[in-house]
Each structure stands twice: as C-alpha cells, then as structure tokens.
C-alpha cells in the first residue's frame, strides 16, 4: 500500500483520543498575489503543528504577529479548513464534524466584534439563540454573567459603540461563557487594553479556571500573561510549534532566566521584533 509523505507524518504523531484538544501534524498555507504581475506568494501559516490538551487545562501559545496563532484558533473554531493533518475537540474532527465542534467551542478574539449600535444585552441575547438558548433561558442568565465579568448593570442597554475597549472585551468574555463552552479559545484577549482592563480580564480568566471545567487555549504575545495563566507554554514561530511545556521547563531547556530569553533562544529572534508587513498580517495573523 502506497502512503503519502503527509499521511506518514500524521501517522507518526501518536493519537490522544482522551484529550480535550488533539492537534496532529496540522498544516495550513495561504497563497496570494504578489506585487508583480502574475506573481504568487505562498506563506506557511501552520507547519506540522501537533499537541494535545487535557480537560480543564490551560495552555498558552506564544508567538509574534504572523506566527500562526490566529490561524490555529480559526482552524479549531471551524472557520478555516486545514490543508493537512487533523484537529479534534473531544474526539470530534473539526473538518468532518464541524457542528458537533461548534457546540463545544467558543472564542474571544482581539477585536470584540459586536453589532455596534446594539446594546450588550441585545448582542448577548441574539448570539445565545444561535446556540439554541431561548429568551426565557437567557433573561436571567445574561445579567448574572455580565455582573460576573464586572460589567456595570446600568450600562447594559447602552450601544456597544459607547463602551470602552475594556468594557467591550468583558462583554466578549460574557458572550463566550454564556454558551458554557467545553473549550475556550482566547486569541489575544487583552491586546490593546489599558493596564486596569487587562488585569480585570486576566482575573476573570483565572476565575473561569477555578469555577469552570473549561479547557482554555490562550494565544498571546504577552509573556507575563502566558506564564501567569497557563500550566504549559508553547512557542509558535513561523507556523512551527517549537516547544510546549511548563514555563520553568522552557527556561531550563533553553538555559534562560526569563521566558523572553527562552523565546529568543528557541527562535533566534527577539520577542518584540516584527517581521511581517501589514499585508501579510492581514492574511496570516
């Protein structure tokens, strides 16, 4: 029987059917027009990424803009189809069983993403219906969840556009939690927030870890946030997952004193360095 190279690579990654999130040899590349006529550019966004997450575990993935973090989140939330490999949420394949996966997953991204003229309560209400929750079920739940994320009750009916970024991000967390996801995908949830809002969002993520059974994948380029919130930290660089282990083990492995030094040792690049141009970021971020 002839086996392709990709299939052989996939088979080489051990299966973890008991894992909450199982990613094996995941590949994704994008092609786009170059600046010259007829030119096609190919960028590898995910290059054979493999890892597994236990139920209730929080894993942080560190990476620069364009490293493939958001691509990974989009594949896991069924918004992107991978070119190769496989990803499973509680055993459900994200390509073959997207609807089963969607019931289990929710996401908070760097942009809060709401209908700006609608209020927080209205945005949460209609979004919950998409998950089969009736208005009777959400009438009492929405105020409770908004209160838990520290959203002032008196601002519940204000249009989203009147709220600060920090407030909007709290509503985004509330929207994700409303559907009781088994797997929560957090894609740079605190990027661009003021220090106070950032701290509040991080505190709430900690509360979710303590009170929910959710498995959390946190993609960030905030080293402190990764170390403070996750039991294991991964380094994703140009689509390749170079390491995934507890922060202390990462430092030991790379003989580094800080995570930043470990990142530099793993990737050969300083953490702040930005190599992508804006066009690339638009497609690959």
């Amino acid at each position, binding site marked *: 029987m002839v086996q392709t190279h990709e299939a052989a690579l996939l088979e080489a990654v051990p299966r973890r059917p008991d894992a909450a999130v199982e990613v094996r040899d995941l590949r994704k590349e994008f092609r786009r027009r170059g600046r010259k006529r007829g030119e096609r550019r190919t960028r590898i966004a995910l290059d054979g990424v493999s890892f597994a997450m236990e139920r209730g575990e929080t894993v942080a993935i560190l990476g620069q803009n364009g490293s493939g973090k958001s*691509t990974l989140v*989009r594949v896991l939330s*069924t918004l992107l189809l991978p070119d190769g490999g496989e990803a499973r949420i509680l055993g459900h394949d994200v390509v073959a069983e997207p609807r089963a996966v*969607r*019931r289990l997953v929710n996401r908070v991204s760097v942009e809060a993403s709401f209908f700006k*003229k609608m209020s927080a309560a209205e945005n949460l*209400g209609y979004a919950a*219906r998409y*998950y*089969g929750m009736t208005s009777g079920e959400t009438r009492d739940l929405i105020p409770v969840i908004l209160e838990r994320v520290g959203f002032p009750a008196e601002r519940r009916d204000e249009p989203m556009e009147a709220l600060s970024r920090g407030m909007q991000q709290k509503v985004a967390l509330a929207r994700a939690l409303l559907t009781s996801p088994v797997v929560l995908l957090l894609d740079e949830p605190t990027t661009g927030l003021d220090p106070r809002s950032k701290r509040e969002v991080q505190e709430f993520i900690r509360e979710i870890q303590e009170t929910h059974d959710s498995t959390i994948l946190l993609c960030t380029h905030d080293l402190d946030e990764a170390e403070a919130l996750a039991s294991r930290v991964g380094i994703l660089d140009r689509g390749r997952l170079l390491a995934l282990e507890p922060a202390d083990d990462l430092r030991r492995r790379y003989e580094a004193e800080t995570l930043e030094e470990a990142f530099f040792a793993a990737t050969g690049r300083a953490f702040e360095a930005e190599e992508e141009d804006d066009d690339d970021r638009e497609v690959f971020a």
Partner: protein
Amino acid sequence: MKAVGATLRAELVGAGGVVERNFYLTKRYIWWDLAWFFWTVANTLTIVFIAQGIESTGGQIDVNEVATSLLIGAVVWAYLGVLFEFLMETVAWERWEGTIEYTFMAPLSRAMHLAGQGLFAISYGLLRAVFLFVVCALFFDLSMPDANFFGAFVVIAIASISFIGIGVMTSVLPLISPEKGTQLGFVAQGTLLVVSGVYYPVDVLPGWMQVLAKFSPATYALEGARRAIQGGASMSELWSDIWPLLVIGAVSIPLGLWVFSRGEHYAKKHGKLKRSG
C-alpha cells in the same frame, strides 16, 4: 427521536435569533429607515405621476390604468428589492460589523441562518410595501373595483420564496470576494429590474432580454399582481403566474443553499471568512 426534536428546536430558536437581531438593528436605525421610506415614497410618486404627465401633454392613455400599473410595479419592486438586499447583505453586513466569524462558528445550520434572514426580510418588506401602497394611493384617485388583493398577496408570497433563493445565491458573492461580491450583487439586482417588466410590459424588450425575463421571478410576480389587482383575476386564473414561481422557487432555494455552501467552503479554504472595515 428526542435528539432530533432537540436539534430541530435549537435550529428554530437559532433562526429566531436572526430575526431578533434584525429587529434590534431596525429599532436602532429607525430614523434611517424612515428617511429611506420617505425617499421610496417620493421615488414611487415620481414614477406614478408620469401617467398624469403623459395625459397633460396630450397623450391618449387611460390614466387610472397606467397609474395603477406603475404603482403596482413600484411597490412590488420595492418589496422584492428589500428581500434581495437583505439576503445580499447577509455576509457583507456581518463582515462590516466584524461579527461574521462568530456567526459562522455558531452551531446553527446555514439553511436556518438564511431562513431567519429571509423570514425577517419578508415580514419587514411586506409591512413596508403595504404602507407604501396605501400612502402613494392616497395621492391619486385610483379606482380598483375588481381588485383581488388576496390573489395578489398569494402571488407575491410565492414570489418571495423564489426571490430568497436567488438572493441566497448572490449573498455568497461577498464571501468569495469581499468588495467585488457586493458590486456583482448590485449588477444582478439591476439586471432583474430591467428585464422583469417593472414599469412596462416585458414584450417591449429586445428578444434576448425577453428570454432573461422568463427566468426572473419578478416577471411573474408583477404580471400576477397586476392581473389580480387591475383585472380581478381569480386564483385559478393566476395559476399561469403561480406555477413558474413555484418551479423557480423549487430550483432556486436548494440551488442557492448549495451555491452558498460551496462559497462558504471556498472562503474557509482561502481564509476569507473574516472581518473587513
């Protein structure tokens, strides 16, 4: 069986969510809606006054007949235009607001998502069309003694299904090409406007346009509505307009869903399912 019931319930609740969201948005943009309604009334009146203008400049026409025909054309097109635009903007709107990824990662089937969008468009469009007809009719001393309004309503209701199918097909365009898709949607809508006999009989069109008219549900909707309101045609007499609408609907709805699913697959393959604006 219980699982099927629960899934069906969740799907219906989800479709209701789309209606609910559109209701909130309409409420928030109510002054824009009123301004747009005023513009539509003015536009309709401008068209219907053409009948009186022709007579006053010496033209030999039946003013009541022509004014009623123009009014029906303007109102039916305004209604079908609302349906078409709501469907066409299913993707474009969400892409602009930035909610597209959250909608497409929700466990709501695309058929029910689009059904919710269609249901709101029909309710909103019908209400608007009735107001438009009543407000504009007040400006003219129109006589419609034999009008079969129920028959006209049935024809338009069936046409709505066909139009939603075509709208779903065009709504996929912004999914494939965010900017060009919306532009192409307007081209499709404009084509239907010119070939469907909105303000004139289809047989005045060049031959190749008359061929296109046969595939437009608006052609049969307008013909049926005029025959019901102006000629008092009974339901059995309207069958010749109803059956083509049923055929177009039976083809366009599944075809529209299939085209949309292919477009969604393409967008997910090429990373186009994300916000812009």
